[in-house]
Each structure stands twice: as structure tokens, then as C-alpha cells.
């Protein structure tokens, strides 16, 4: 479904990003300018910028796609992304700002006064950053292919190149206005079409979304499968097939699909009559709309409970450990503003996350073929032009596509700049100022880009969930214990991060490499947070209690600095940025 307006809007978003990146940084910025600016940014603007950076492809496309495919259990993703900020607000926001840390490695070093701990935090930051970048780039490929018909490799490469160019040219980091604008653009891009979609649904007699039947095609529908898939037909259907079905070649012939599994070859075209039940890709349970709308897979088995709780733990506790989230808190004037900013973020995320659910539910009615192709993340992209005819629908579709691209670009930029900073300073330990930073930027974007090209077919949501699980198992204990527990030692912190983060990362990589089948083992590996987070905390506490002599020397003054309001003269809160002269 190629939409000419989409090409134009996506191109505009890309051009605007490059233009702002290259011209925005020409405005001369001294270090003190940076400080004056960052200290005068009011909470609402700062919160918009945080929202702009945080709402990624996973939020813009992925949440709706997951709910569309798997039902209300997936509502825990947006709930977790939001409650994660509440947890961040009450345990981390103000002390983190007062610590003066720019990145998690900075925090680890200043609190624990240990370079080895800094190194461990650095490696983990890069790991989490790359894990989170990978699905952004994959999403870019999907979007570009859905709206313009471009080959699947173009999206990841395009986003990676533009992000690299921008970051290397001057950095998106300090451009608060751009990120703030991105939030409101994304909000408009998802909220304006939804109004028209709901109106069109009501004009069509507001057909019920539930019902004891599986999703069905409303009209005669032609579906072309890009890749070979195994599908499950919940009801017998008669399709006109061109291509390979169950090993037999067809050419515009009527083909009965009995109830059960069928293998459909790549590039096969299927024409379904109106009212036919949609055969669904085997990774999505083919259930009736009624059952889809029930919680806990409609069963409430121990496995579905484990998956739900592990997701809750990962998202509630993982948000505070995402590398690009922490960086943004530095632009708050003080700890009190950091709290107020976070509060506004809660509101901005809340209103945004009301919307994907509407797309998901109406997608069951109007875009059921995505259950067949498995490209459920495209539901937000497809619905506007599906429900609203003519130029209006195409323009709304283009708006959504532009919003999705803004989502990839803003999140990828924030992540790339953070990962590149940590790479050049701590991992590669390059000398030579901006040139080494540029080199690190290319590396920071190239690795996940290559992964997105070669490791295809990875469920985007699982990778995002894994990034959260690693962050929750390593950085959450570091931040929470570091801020609230004086007896945390460098040995304990390193042990906790290595045990928690290492186990979560290992479990996740295991699922990518080894085929674990279906069952408890796979569940434990795909959603490891429920066991890796407690282990991370336990290792950090046990390691600290075993090495009481390694408590940081200045722990008393550090704790005072973290918790006492600024401006009392009790603690020195001012820190100055490390600067590098441009070549």
C-alpha cells in the first residue's frame, strides 16, 4: 500500500531533522551558554523533551501492535512504561539531579569513588543502549516498507545514517526544543487520525469488536505474503491462491483451507472473500474476538501470571536505567525541578498511551490481514487510510508515518549520543576530542544497524522487554541502593550489576541463539526480570555487607549532596562539565 503523501511527510521529517541538526548547532554555544540554557528550562518544556525522546517506535507502533495481536495482557507494556516514571520520581529523580551525574557511569563513579565500577556500568550502558536501538531500527524498516514499499534494509540504514550525521555534526543532546517539538508532533500524529477513525467506525454503525467469532475480512481482500509463514485457519475458508500453499503450486485457483495449520510460501497472493475468517500466523493464538478481549490469555495459568509479573517488574524498575532517560535529568535546574518535570512526564505519557488501544481494537475489525502476515506493528500505519477514503485518509496515513519516523529518530538520536559518549570515554578510552567522539558515534549506530539487517524476524517487543530487564536487574539496584543505602560498597555494586545484568543479558541472548520451544524454560528466558532483579539486588547487598571496608570515603558528604535541597550551603551541588575543544 504505497501512499505518495507518506513519502513526502517522511522525507520532510528526515530533512527537518537533518536541517535542525546541522543548522541548530551552528548557533554558537559556549559551555556557559549550555548551563544558562539548561538551568532556565521550565519543567513543562523539559518534560515534553523527555517525552519526545522516550516515546519510541515501541510506544508509537509496538504497543498497538501487541494489543492488537495478544489482547489486554499487553496493556502492561504502556502501564509499565508510565509507572516506571513514577518509581523513578519517588526514588531517583531529585537525588540523581543533585548528584550532578550526566550518565550512569558518572553516577556510579561519583557515588562509589571507584573506577572499576564505572567501567562495569559503562559496558552495561552500551549493552542496554544497543539492545534498545535494535528494535528502533527494525521498526524503521517496517514503517518505510509499509508506507513506501522500500526494501526492508533501507529503513534501518537510513535512520542510522541520519542519526550518525546529526550526532557527529553537533549532537541532538542539548536541543531541548527539538525533542519537545517531537513529543507534540508524535502526539498529534497519533491523536488526530484516531478522532477520524472513531468517527468513521461510528458512521459505519459502530460494529461490535467482541463476539464469539474469529476476526474476519470485511470485504474481499487480497493479501500478498512477503515471507513464507505457517498459518492456522480457525474456520474453513475458500481462497483464490497464486503461489505455493501446503507445497502445491496454484495459479489463480480456488483453494480450500481446512481448519488447522497450513504452510504458505513467500510471495504468495491470497484473495479472501468477504466474511472469511482470517487464518493467523502461528505465533499468534487464533482466538475469537471474545477470548482475545480477556486478560491472562483467557486462562489465568501460572505461566501467564509469571509472564505478566516479570513484565511488570522489568518495566516498573527498568525505566530508571535506560541510558537516554538518565541524561535528560541533567538539564533540570535542580532536584525540585527534576521532580516536577517527572510529574509532568507522567501526565504526558498517560494521555499518549490512551490512544494505541483504540487502534488495536479497531484493527481487529478493519486490518485483520495483519494477523495473517504477522506484521502487527503496522496496525497504526494502516488504519487511517483503511477507514477514511480519498485524499483525507492518505494525508492522515502520511501523518502517522511521519510520527513513526519522528519516534525512531528522536529515540535513536538520544540513545546513540549516550552510547557514543560512553564508548569514547570509558570503553574505547579514546583521546583526541571530537574526532574520537565521531568515531564512537559511527560505531554506536553501526553495530545495532548491522544486527537489524542480519538478525531479522526478531519480535520487537521481546527485544525491548529484554533491554528493560537488563536495566532493571543492574542499574535499578545500583541507583536505588546507591541513593538510599550508605553501606553500599564498590565491590557490592560491581557484583550486583554483573550478576543481575549478566544473567538477564545471558538469558535474552540465549533465546535468540537457542531454540527453546514452548514451555516454562522459554518463559523464564524471554522474561527474566522476575528472577534476575532479586538476584541483582541480593548480590549487591551481600557483596556490600561482605566488604564493609570498601564503603566510599566521602559517603556522608555524597549522601548530603544527593538529598539536601540546593542553595543551603550544606553541600556543594555545582559540578562543571568536562569539555572538549572542537577540532
Amino acid at each position, binding site marked *: 500500500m504505497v501512499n505518495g503523501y507518506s513519502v513526502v511527510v517522511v522525507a520532510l521529517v528526515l530533512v527537518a531533522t537533518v536541517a535542525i541538526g546541522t543548522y541548530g548547532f551552528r548557533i554558537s554555544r559556549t559551555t556557559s551558554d549550555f548551563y544558562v540554557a539548561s538551568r532556565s528550562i521550565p519543567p513543562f518544556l523539559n518534560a515534553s523533551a523527555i517525552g519526545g525522546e522516550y516515546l519510541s517506535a515501541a510506544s508509537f507502533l509496538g504497543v498497538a501492535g501487541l494489543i492488537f495481536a495478544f489482547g489486554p495482557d499487553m496493556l502492561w507494556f504502556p502501564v509499565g512504561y508510565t509507572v516506571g516514571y513514577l518509581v523513578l520520581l519517588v526514588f531517583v529523580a531529585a537525588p540523581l539531579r543533585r548528584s550532578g551525574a550526566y550518565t550512569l557511569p558518572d553516577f556510579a563513579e561519583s557515588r562509589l569513588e571507584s573506577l572499576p565500577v564505572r567501567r562495569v556500568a559503562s559496558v552495561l550502558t552500551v549493552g542496554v543502549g544497543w539492545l534498545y536501538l535494535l528494535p528502533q531500527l527494525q521498526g524503521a524498516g517496517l514503517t518505510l516498507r509499509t508506507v513506501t514499499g522500500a526494501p526492508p534494509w533501507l529503513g534501518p540504514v537510513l535512520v542510522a545514517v541520519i542519526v550518525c550525521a546529526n550526532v557527529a555534526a553537533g549532537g541532538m543532546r542539548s536541543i531541548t526544543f527539538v525533542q519537545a517539538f517531537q513529543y507534540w508532533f508524535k502526539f498529534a500524529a497519533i491523536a488526530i487520525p484516531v478522532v477520524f477513525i472513531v468517527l468513521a467506525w461510528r458512521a459505519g454503525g459502530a460494529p461490535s469488536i467482541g463476539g464469539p467469532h474469529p476476526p474476519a475480512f470485511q470485504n474481499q481482500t487480497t493479501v500478498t505474503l512477503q515471507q513464507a509463514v505457517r498459518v492456522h485457519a480457525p474456520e474453513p475458508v475458500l481462497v483464490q491462491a497464486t503461489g505455493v500453499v501446503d507445497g502445491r503450486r496454484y495459479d489463480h485457483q480456488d483453494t480450500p483451507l481446512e481448519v488447522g495449520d497450513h504452510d504458505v510460501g513467500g510471495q504468495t497472493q491470497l484473495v479472501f472473500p468477504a466474511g472469511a475468517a482470517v487464518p493467523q500466523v502461528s505465533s499468534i493464538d487464533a482466538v475469537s474476538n471474545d477470548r482475545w478481549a480477556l486478560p491472562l490469555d483467557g486462562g489465568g495459568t501460572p505461566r501467564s501470571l509469571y509472564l505478566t509479573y516479570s513484565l511488570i517488574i522489568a518495566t516498573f524498575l527498568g525505566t530508571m536505567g535506560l541510558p537516554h532517560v538518565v541524561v535528560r535529568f541533567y538539564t533540570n535546574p535542580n532536584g525540585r525541578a527534576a521532580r516536577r518535570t517527572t510529574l509532568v512526564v*507522567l501526565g504526558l505519557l498517560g494521555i499518549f498511551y490512551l490512544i494505541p488501544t483504540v487502534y488495536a481494537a479497531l484493527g481487529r475489525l478493519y486490518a485483520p490481514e495483519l494477523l495473517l502476515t504477522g506484521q502487527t506493528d503496522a496496525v497504526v500505519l494502516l488504519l487511517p487510510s483503511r477507514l477514511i477514503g480519498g485524499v483525507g485518509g492518505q494525508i492522515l496515513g502520511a501523518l502517522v508515518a511521519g510520527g513513526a519516523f519522528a519516534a525512531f529518530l528522536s529515540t535513536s538520536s538520544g540513545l546513540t549520543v549516550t552510547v557514543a*559518549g560512553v564508548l569514547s570515554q570509558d570503553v574505547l578510552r579514546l583521546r583526541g576530542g571530537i574526532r574520537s567522539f565521531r568515531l564512537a558515534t559511527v560505531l554506536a549506530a553501526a553495530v545495532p544497524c548491522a544486527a537489524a539487517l542480519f538478525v531479522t524476524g526478531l519480535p520487537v517487543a521481546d527485544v525491548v522487554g529484554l533491554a528493560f530487564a537488563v536495566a532493571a536487574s543492574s542499574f535499578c539496584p545500583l541507583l536505588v541502593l546507591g541513593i538510599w543505602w550508605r553501606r553500599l560498597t564498590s565491590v557490592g555494586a560491581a557484583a550486583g550489576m554483573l550478576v543481575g545484568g549478566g544473567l538477564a543479558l545471558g538469558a535474552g541472548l540465549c533465546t535468540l541463539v537457542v531454540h527453546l520451544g514452548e514451555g516454562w524454560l522459554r518463559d523464564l528466558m524471554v522474561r527474566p526480570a522476575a528472577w534476575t532483579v532479586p538476584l541483582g539486588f541480593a548480590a549487591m547487598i551481600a557483596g556490600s555487607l561482605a566488604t564493609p571496608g570498601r564503603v566510599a570515603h*566521602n559517603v556522608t558528604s555524597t549522601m548530603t549532596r544527593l538529598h539536601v535541597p540546593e542553595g543551603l550551603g550544606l553541600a556543594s551541588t555545582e559540578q562543571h562539565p568536562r569539555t572538549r575543544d572542537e577540532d
Partner: protein
Amino acid sequence: MNRKPVPERVVVMSPRTRASRRTRPAPVSRPDDRTSELREVYVRSLIRGQLRRGLIVSAVVAGGLAVVPLLFAFAPALWTVTVFGVGLVWVVLGVAVYPVVLLAGWMYVWRTERGEREFVELVEQS
């Protein structure tokens, strides 16, 4: 024609944590100062208060949400409950949770800022 000197452009990478620690004074515990001991006591009680408030808020919100899956698992009767024709789970997790979280955050900020104000008054009196 005068041109203003163009300030040299620098790239901000991260705080100079190492450099700043060398020069940072240790302000809290001057050994000869009795009020500093008192302040240390105040600081500890401030931290305890902030932690308590954080734990209460997160226990209420996260704890309340954590009960939701269990409720649905052990009371399947809830599955058929609808609000304006929409299933209860959709209303709770899709809509109602967001204003509750915002309200909890607002109450936390309000209480915490009051705690900080009280601390500042105590310190300034001492």
C-alpha cells in the same frame, strides 16, 4: 565595523567529576563544629523521611497494580464485568491507571516538597 568575538565552541561531554572532587570542600562535618553534628542528624532524618514517603507511594501504586493479575486469575467472574460495554480489564489498565498514577505522583511531590521546606527551616534555625 566591529565584530564581536565569536566564543570558542566546545562540546559538553559529561561532568568533570574527577576534577570537581579534587576541589570539593567537605562541607558537612567540620570536626570542631557542634551545629554540624546536629545538621548531620537532620540530614539523616530528612533522608529517612524521603525514603518512607517513596516507599509508601510505590507500595500503594505498584502494590495495587500487582494485585490486578491475581484478581483476574482467581476471580474469573470479573472477566464478564463491563463498564459502558467495555471489559473491566480494559477500563482499569487502559484508562483508569493513568490518572491514578498522576495523582499519586502529585501527592508525593507535594508531601516531599513540604518535607524539604521543614528541613530548611530546621537548618536555618540551628
